[in-house]
């Protein structure tokens, strides 16, 4: 909300410097976004009211005229002017040499086609007061020659720009801001703007228009007044200046008046050319399905029954609260005007605004919900201005249709509750001052909420907020609460996450943060077969782009992108991981969202065993001892160089998948559920004596068929080794003479240990013999000496 300061001062007076006022407003809940200076930046004394004494043709230029202009100091200036919309006697705005224009240019004595010009007669656009640059501004003749222009016209204006939160539509206008200023400064607020003019028109409003509301749910109140003898034309300079300073465009006196009322008190109003209204009848109704209307901006729009319209006997003349229809527009020829001051339902106006893609200054106010009690204030201010500025006569009477209007709530405020919630002590006087300045009225020990706050303030806590902010939020001290009686802690999920992240970093992988969202092509790029649950993506109904249409079901594909870009940047090797959530349809409203850990190794030194080593580190850290690696059957992995483990997998990428992600050379990935890495609870890990008695170490090499996996050998060794077998490790695989063709020799370290006694060599030999026998029986293995 842009608030011109001279306008604000009309409703509340203050001496506080603007930066200080802005700070105070920010600290009481109306945040100052910016402080702008509009118009003439400095040297205001060089701008005067002048009168043209003579106007002649420039001797050397057809399009220029040579004028003498009285600026009130008895020393008429010679001014060369390019405009032609004036004659001798005109009252004009003059800038003298040395003046700085709003666009920053400094005026000098200049020679124009050989003739000196000692100043400039100004147009609206040169003063940043409006769009008109065709001619110079013609000022009222009763302005005294020689007066400083600023005394009549806001040629320089400070504008405070505030951020208004969505719960405060009452602050989207100058008077509402003035109320907040009055509360913040504890200064008096002026009366509501607008004084009812005398109704001098003939007949009564009923003679001119009939109205009815067919959709009271969407329009709780509709009021209108009729003005005859309207002369449509430009607004006076002061009005243009205010409209422009508030950030809108001056259009014509009638339209500017409707905008002024909205900017002044927050009620959007609309003007109809009543002579164009068929049957002089106003019907506030829902649009018919597919009803068409062309709005003021020239757009043809198709409506539906959720949209409220203001119609005449035949067709819509406006989309309620949003924009008028082109055909009912007030034009230069308009003489009879109907001014509408209504109350429209916020949510439905918002829906229509979104559906039609039509957001206006009006809709941005309606959608937050406005006070139906604003209507009389708006009627008074609009009427006053219509009569004063358009030469119109107000027809006696007002059409004002409404049912029972909501009465504002009366809310109690307990001082002890206020102090208990804020942590500050307040005096009764402070409480009363804050609330009355904001428009609350005491009523039987409770507070009557002002109508413009009725939607927002319904509970004690809402009053607590008002007192807290107006009495000064700086007074709130900084204190610490006690904390959880059980003590602070990271919680299981976070502890596990940190453990996994720590192991992966320790293994040399760098953490990544990749997108949780996939494009629809990912399942095909991963070669996921139909029926694979990971193809059944959780889709977004309203994606922003084709790249982000569904939630990921796997984490590693995002890492492939990162690997590719980093390799492309010249990294020789890339090792990255991510711990995050995947999303799998569950049959319930919410999908399953388990946390998973994934990694990618690409470039130099990337292969199945490197990736498996990382997974083994994760398993070891989690004390998961039972995880077996089996050949995997994942469509995105190399079928001969991949394994499944627990609820995940590890392996080299299938070449087609690597190619789909632009990866050259070998890349290996792994992915596992984080939950399977939880391991046993810490308190279940109990001491075993591993130091008192020395271990017995033995190495064996066993020759088996090529098709026997090393993991199978280890299984057989474990099963036959006895209770004292503490560790089995494969340390070599040998093929070639003297091992026969089609067979291989697998070498293992065996460690036997007891926590009760020192094992004898004889015990070791016995265990070894059991193992060798089992290997022979189950795997056809022979001991290699």
């Amino acid at each position, binding site marked *: 909300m842009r608030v011109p300061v001279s306008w604000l001062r009309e409703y509340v007076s203050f001496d506080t410097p603007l930066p200080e006022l802005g700070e105070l407003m920010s600290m009481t809940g109306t945040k100052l976004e910016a402080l702008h200076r509009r118009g003439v930046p400095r040297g205001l004394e060089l701008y005067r009211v002048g009168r043209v004494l003579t106007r002649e043709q420039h001797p050397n230029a057809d399009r220029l005229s040579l004028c003498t202009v009285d600026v009130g100091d008895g020393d008429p200036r010679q001014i060369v002017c390019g405009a032609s919309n004036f004659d001798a006697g005109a009252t004009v705005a003059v800038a003298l040499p040395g003046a700085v224009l709003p666009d920053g240019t400094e005026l000098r004595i200049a020679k124009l086609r050989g003739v000196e010009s000692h100043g400039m007669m100004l147009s609206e656009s040169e003063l940043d007061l409006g769009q008109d640059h065709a001619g110079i501004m013609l000022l009222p003749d009763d302005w005294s020659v020689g007066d400083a222009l600023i005394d009549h016209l806001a040629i320089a204006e400070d504008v405070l720009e505030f951020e208004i939160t969505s719960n405060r539509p009452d602050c989207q206008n100058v008077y509402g801001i003035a109320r907040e200023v009055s509360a913040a400064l504890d200064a008096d607020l002026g009366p509501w703007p607008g004084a009812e003019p005398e109704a001098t028109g003939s007949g009564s409003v009923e003679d001119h228009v009939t109205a009815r509301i067919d959709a009271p749910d969407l329009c709780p109140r509709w009021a209108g007044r009729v003005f005859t003898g309207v002369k449509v034309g430009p607004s006076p300079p002061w009005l243009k200046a205010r409209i422009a300073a508030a950030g809108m465009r001056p259009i014509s006196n009638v339209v500017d008046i409707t905008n002024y009322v909205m900017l002044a008190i927050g009620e959007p109003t609309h003007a109809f050319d009543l002579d164009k209204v068929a049957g002089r009848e106003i019907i506030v109704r829902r649009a018919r399905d597919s009803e068409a209307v062309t709005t003021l901006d020239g757009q043809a729009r198709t409506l539906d029954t959720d949209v409220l319209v203001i119609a005449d006997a035949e067709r819509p003349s406006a989309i309620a609260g949003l924009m008028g229809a082109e055909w009912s527009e007030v034009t230069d020829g308009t003489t009879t005007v109907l001014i509408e001051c209504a109350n429209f339902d916020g949510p439905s106006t918002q829906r229509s605004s979104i559906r039609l893609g039509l957001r206006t200054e009006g809709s941005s106010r309606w959608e937050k919900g406005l006070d139906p009690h604003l209507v009389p204030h708006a009627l008074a201010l609009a009427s006053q201005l219509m009569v004063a500025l358009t030469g119109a006569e107000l027809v006696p009477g007002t059409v004002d249709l409404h049912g029972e209007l909501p009465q504002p709530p009366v809310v109690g405020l307990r001082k002890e509750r206020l102090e208990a919630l804020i942590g500050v002590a307040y005096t009764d006087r402070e409480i009363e001052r804050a609330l009355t300045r904001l428009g609350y009225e005491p009523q039987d020990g409770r507070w009557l909420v002002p109508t413009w706050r009725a939607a927002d303030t319904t509970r004690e*806590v809402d009053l607590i907020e008002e007192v807290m902010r107006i009495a000064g*939020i700086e007074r709130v001290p*900084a*204190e610490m609460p006690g*904390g959880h009686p059980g003590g602070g802690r990271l919680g299981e999920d*976070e502890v596990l996450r940190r453990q996994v992240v720590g192991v992966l970093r*320790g293994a040399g992988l760098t*953490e990544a*943060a990749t997108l949780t969202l996939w494009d629809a092509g990912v399942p095909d790029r991963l070669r996921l077969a139909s029926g694979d649950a990971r193809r059944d993506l959780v889709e977004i109904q309203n994606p922003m782009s084709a790249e982000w249409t569904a939630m990921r079901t796997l984490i590693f594909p995002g890492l492939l992108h990162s690997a590719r870009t980093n390799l492309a940047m010249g990294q020789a090797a890339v090792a990255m991981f991510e711990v995050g959530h995947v999303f799998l349809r569950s049959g319930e409203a919410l999908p399953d969202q388990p946390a998973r850990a994934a990694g990618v190794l690409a470039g130099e030194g990337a292969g199945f065993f490197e990736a498996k080593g990382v997974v083994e580190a994760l398993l070891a850290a989690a004390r998961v001892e039972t995880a077996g690696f089996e050949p995997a059957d994942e469509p995105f992995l190399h079928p001969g160089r991949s394994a499944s483990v627990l609820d995940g997998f590890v392996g080299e990428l299938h070449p087609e998948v690597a190619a789909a992600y632009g990866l050259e050379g070998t890349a290996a990935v792994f992915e596992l559920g984080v939950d399977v890495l939880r391991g046993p609870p810490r308190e279940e890990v109990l001491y075993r004596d591993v130091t008192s008695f020395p271990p017995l170490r033995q190495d064996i090499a066993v020759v088996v068929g090529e098709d026997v996996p090393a993991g199978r050998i280890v299984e057989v060794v474990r099963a036959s080794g006895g209770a004292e077998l503490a560790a089995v490790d494969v340390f070599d695989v040998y093929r070639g003479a003297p091992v026969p063709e089609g067979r291989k020799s697998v070498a293992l370290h065996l460690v036997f240990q007891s926590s009760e006694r020192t094992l004898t060599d004889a015990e070791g030999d016995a265990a070894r013999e059991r193992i060798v026998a089992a290997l022979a029986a189950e795997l056809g293995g022979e001991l290699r000496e």
Partner: protein
Amino acid sequence: MDVDALVSEATARIEAARDVAALEEIRIEVLGRKAPLVQALRELASLPPDERRARGDELNRARRSLEGVVDERARELRRRELEERLRTDRVDVTLPGVRHPRGYSHLIEQTRRDILDVFVGFGYVVVDGPEIDLVHYNFDALNHAPTHPSRQVTDTFYIADDVVLRTHTSPVQIRTMEAGPPPVYMATAGRCYRRDTPDATHTAMFTQIEGLVVDRGITLAHLKGTLLGFARAIFGAEREVRLRPHFFPFTEPSVEVDVSCFNCARDGSPCRVCKGEGWVEILGAGMVDPNLYGYVDGYDPEEVSGFAFGLGVERVAGLRHDIPDIRLLWENDLRFTGQFG
């Protein structure tokens, strides 16, 4: 034979020996079988008995003395030779060490941990919550009016009419209160989603940290003290915080929180972080709106009160590390990550 003269002369020679070999030669000369001292000892038996004892003592003393001097000199020479050998066994210590692979932690993770750790220190329990959540938790139970703009399909990603990608971590407030009675001291961190067009300060996916405290006698002053502690832990011990009244549907009163600028000092003026204001907005917070307690059991607003806050991890990381564009955080460029890991 003048034993004293012999000892002092031999001692001088031993102590002057330049290396182990020279020392050995001298030792043989003065203590070897043919040495005069040893000869004299051998001839003791030929002396008269009354002289024999005194002479024997004198000669033995001299021999032990010289043996000690030889041992001492030998130790010293060996030490010297070792030193000499080590002196020549040199490496170029400026050559690089043998590299071990090292992974970097992501800046979002680092920042997230730093912040969570602060709140653990304040007595909070860290929990997790779902990224896809019900409209009930994301909006309804957080007191968002049916027409609240953030519910619009232009602002929020919908999975179904009643399911969204959470737009903030605040749903965890309700889930935590549902899970058990007060007191609650909860912190949570995670990904959130909004249909924001990406720019230097926004991404459609971002990381938020949420805190919720509900207990007897919790005040706005407690919120301020908590956030002051947080700001000092994260942005430096000299920081101050400032609350400004604001509006959020699920807190009342609501505040925006500014931290005194940490860049003015770092950078000199004019400061581009605070634009000369001296304050930088870091988060939104407020006292839990009593309407929220109506959505859960066991929370009576006459008995307990609470506060909640939510902050953007990327924003904190960006401010703390002077990162001009938070989209860099999601690019996973190892050169970028490596600056901070």
